[in-house]
């Protein structure tokens, strides 16, 4: 949790620095001592369940929400702190809304030009034309929002937010109103545009896959706190808390007893050189489960096709709950078949202690590996 994300060679000062921000609604903390740094050009995915405070944090950065403690700095300027509040209109922060908030009485072109009022008219028109061309919105430019599809509205909203060239673009669930198929395409296009323009962005989402796909860095929030942050790869493969592990996919949880350099469990013994004393739980992702020639016996109790992925439910006599297995290769098994199951020990995580979710996770320290 403490080590910094990979730093790019040219060390830039953070463009956004949030320090110990706290926000309460009626005494209930929506944000509790949140700190975050974002560097120029970075795309950060802010991930969490609804009500975890991620949207509140976004609104605080934009300046449409006040804080109860801490401070926020954009560049070297403190924009909100104990005795400072910079009005949102002069922060030059772009914001995209879940419902897009396109003004219904203005055309796409007028919407896009809405944030350029301080610019000379000709330059503003040129800027609008440029962004319309960049996002291929020519055919929509004279339409009103109600004449556009959801995807078109999304692109116009993006263009509008980008037109004033904000220091940072804040996006609140920008893809959640789109159909599934469309969503992936629009998401890819959006990221391409952001990358091409070198835009710094924070994207709020409750969709774990989306966060992994989008961000240079994923920041996971829960109950008003940042619980974990890191690259998508790291936060998925080696989450440091049970919470984070459970956020991204189903996890098979199996109790285990330390015994010397091994962990004994109902599904076999695993090498672990870390000297443990108390009972632990093994966190095994469905992808780490595989059918094998040798291994523990199990019976196929369910089989479901999830597109490219196949999910099997495997009942093991010694376990209360069936193991969930996911694979991209088609297995030739049917419900009721007896099979054998093996595990990818490299990706098993060990959770020490009781059932509290926030317990730390450590990888197995493989005796044979060294």
């Amino acid at each position, binding site marked *: 949790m403490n080590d910094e994300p990979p730093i790019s060679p040219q060390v830039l000062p953070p*463009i956004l620095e949030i320090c110990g921000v706290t926000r309460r609604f009626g005494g209930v903390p929506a944000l509790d001592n949140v700190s975050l740094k974002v560097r*120029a050009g970075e795309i950060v995915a802010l991930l969490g369940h609804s009500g975890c405070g991620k949207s509140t944090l976004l*609104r605080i950065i*934009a*300046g*449409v929400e006040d804080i109860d403690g801490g401070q926020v700095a*954009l*560049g*070297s*300027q403190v*924009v909100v702190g104990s*005795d*400072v*509040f*910079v*009005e*949102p*209109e*002069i*922060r*030059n*922060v*772009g*914001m995209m*809304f*879940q*419902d897009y*908030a396109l*003004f*219904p*009485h203005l055309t796409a072109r007028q919407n896009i030009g*809405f*944030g*350029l*009022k*301080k610019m000379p008219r000709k330059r503003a028109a040129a800027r609008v034309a440029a962004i319309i061309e960049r996002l291929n919105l020519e055919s929509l430019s004279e339409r009103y*929002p*109600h004449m556009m599809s959801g995807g078109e509205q999304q692109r116009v909203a993006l263009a*509008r*937010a980008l037109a*004033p*060239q*904000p*220091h*940072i673009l*804040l996006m609140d669930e920008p893809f959640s109103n789109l159909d599934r198929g469309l969503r992936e395409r629009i998401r890819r296009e959006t990221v391409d545009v952001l990358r091409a*323009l*070198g*835009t*710094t962005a924070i994207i709020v989402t409750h969709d774990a896959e989306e966060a992994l796909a989008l961000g240079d860095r994923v920041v996971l929030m829960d109950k008003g706190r940042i619980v974990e942050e890191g690259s998508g790869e790291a936060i998925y493969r080696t989450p440091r808390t049970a919470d984070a592990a459970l956020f991204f996919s189903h996890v098979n949880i199996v109790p285990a007893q330390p015994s010397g350099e091994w962990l004994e469990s109902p599904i076999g013994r695993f090498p672990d050189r870390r000297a443990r004393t108390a009972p632990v739980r093994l966190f095994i992702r469905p992808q780490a489960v595989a059918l094998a020639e040798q291994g523990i016996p199990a019976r196929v109790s369910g089989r479901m096709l999830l597109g490219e992925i196949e999910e099997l439910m495997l009942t093991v006599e010694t376990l209360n709950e069936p193991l969930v297995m996911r694979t991209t290769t088609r297995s030739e098994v049917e419900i009721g078949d007896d099979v054998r199951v093996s595990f990818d020990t490299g990706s098993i995580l060990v959770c020490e202690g009781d059932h509290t979710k926030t317990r730390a996770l450590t990888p197995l320290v493989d005796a044979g590996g060294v």
Partner: protein
Amino acid sequence: MSDLALRPLRRRARLIPSGWAVFAFGVAVFAVLPIVVILTTAMENTGALWSHIVAGILPQATRTTLTLLVGTAVLVTVIGTGCAWLVTAYRFRGRAFLEWGLLLPLAVPTYIMAYAYMDVLSPLGLIQGVIRDLLGYSSPREFRLPDIRAMWGAITLFGFVLYPYVYLTTRMMFLTQAANLVEASRTLGTSRSAVFWRVALPLARPAIAVGVSLALMETLNDIGASQFLGVRTLTASVYTTWIVRNDLAGATQIASAMLVFVVLLIWLERFARRRQRYASNAQRSRAMAARPLTGAKGAVAFAVGFLPIFIGFIGPASYLLGAAIRRIEFAGISPQIVRATLNTVTVSAVATLLVLVAGFVVAYASRIRPGPWTGSFLRLSTLGYAVPGTVLAIGILIPVAALDRFIDRSASEWFGLSTGLLFMGSGCALVYAYTARFLAISSGGIEAGLSRIAISYDHAARTLGHTSTGALLKVHLPLSRTALTAAGLLVFVDCMKELPATLLLRPLNFESLSTLLYGEAARGTYEDAALAALVIVAIGMLPVTLLARVGTSSSDPVAFTDGAQESRSGRGIFWKTSGRRSAST
């Protein structure tokens, strides 16, 4: 792309409230000032010091007022609820006409109603003449109907002209709620006729109470009708004590006594609205299946529904039309009436503008800085709607006259010139009274209109570099245009119709249409009054056409009528809309 060493950012210290909140505070202070003045003045003159005039008048006037209120309440409940049920539960020839036609009496102020019927029903008038002819009498000495200038006459007239308040709220309730519950009760074995008593009526009780409280506020406010009909209510006593007996202190005391009624009515309305909100939590449902009535039954149903329209609108309106035509044929259009019309339109337009601006200030302030302060400013700004015009007028007269005297004295001391009654004489006091009285219509309607605009529009505008004032001009104003228009229309028409405050606060030699009519009726000279009344009724029909669209499923008047409906029947703002928004797609 981001160059952070841009211009230095402007900052503000935390504790300085925004300009909007400050203005909203100012509006609230102005709206509440007259009421505070009345109360403090009354406090100063406690018990033993009450003037003898008041001691003589107050008990009788209170009894009269109470009788009038109770009688009117009963009559508007019966007519309003009955008609609402008639056009909801039954289908017959002419129902579509009745649905909106039953709202028409809203266009007729009580004093015009009384004015028209006094003439029509006078012993020498049309009706009695026809009856005498039919019965073969030759002179009023041989036969006459009981004189309408009595309590029963007042109650009847008020009932037939104020029932639309109950009709409107109750019908909304029947339209949105009744179907499912009525059908459920039918399946549970309730007979068709028992449905009204066992289901519809209990269901409509809060709506009826809201409508009745609004009707009674109008009754309490009325000065013309009770004066014409010789019913000495509290309002009439305030006027006579002040103007005729020249006893301002006494008038203030009576006015403060009236505030008791006001508080009771506000309490009734708010209590009922809270109940109504519970009831309307059920999801919006289709209208109930109406029972068809054909032949004679249908004709009877139509006749029953037509009677209130005839008595409350068609009768007086056609009388006024006839009288006005005769007057124009006889004397042409007098300069007097032209001047009065101009006066009325000018003062009403200025007041309407002020009311809209003030309404927008309090509604917008509570939107952009939500909190207990701005919320209470919004609420306080609406208190005037329940306060009778006479009471409000006294509450305004006292501080404004004092200010006038102060300015006059200072001006004579410093510059050696007398300014006279600067604010009273210029009509400022009158505009103030209109503003304080009708602010609730605009702030309520505008608040309802704003609540349909998603808050993300505000945030989008702010993050795109617009100040909150800029956002107002470029986003909120265009998007709430319909609500604004509806509120403006309602306020304008109410200003035009207003009599009591106009009577008391108008500058010398200033006649509006309503005071012109009042003066002629009081003198017994029936000259231009009918024409003045006709103009008022004609303009008063404009908002009725708005309200009439409620419940009809025409194409896209929803936003417009919702605003009108809410600001009229929801004069108080205690009717929070549930965040519906029609602005976005």
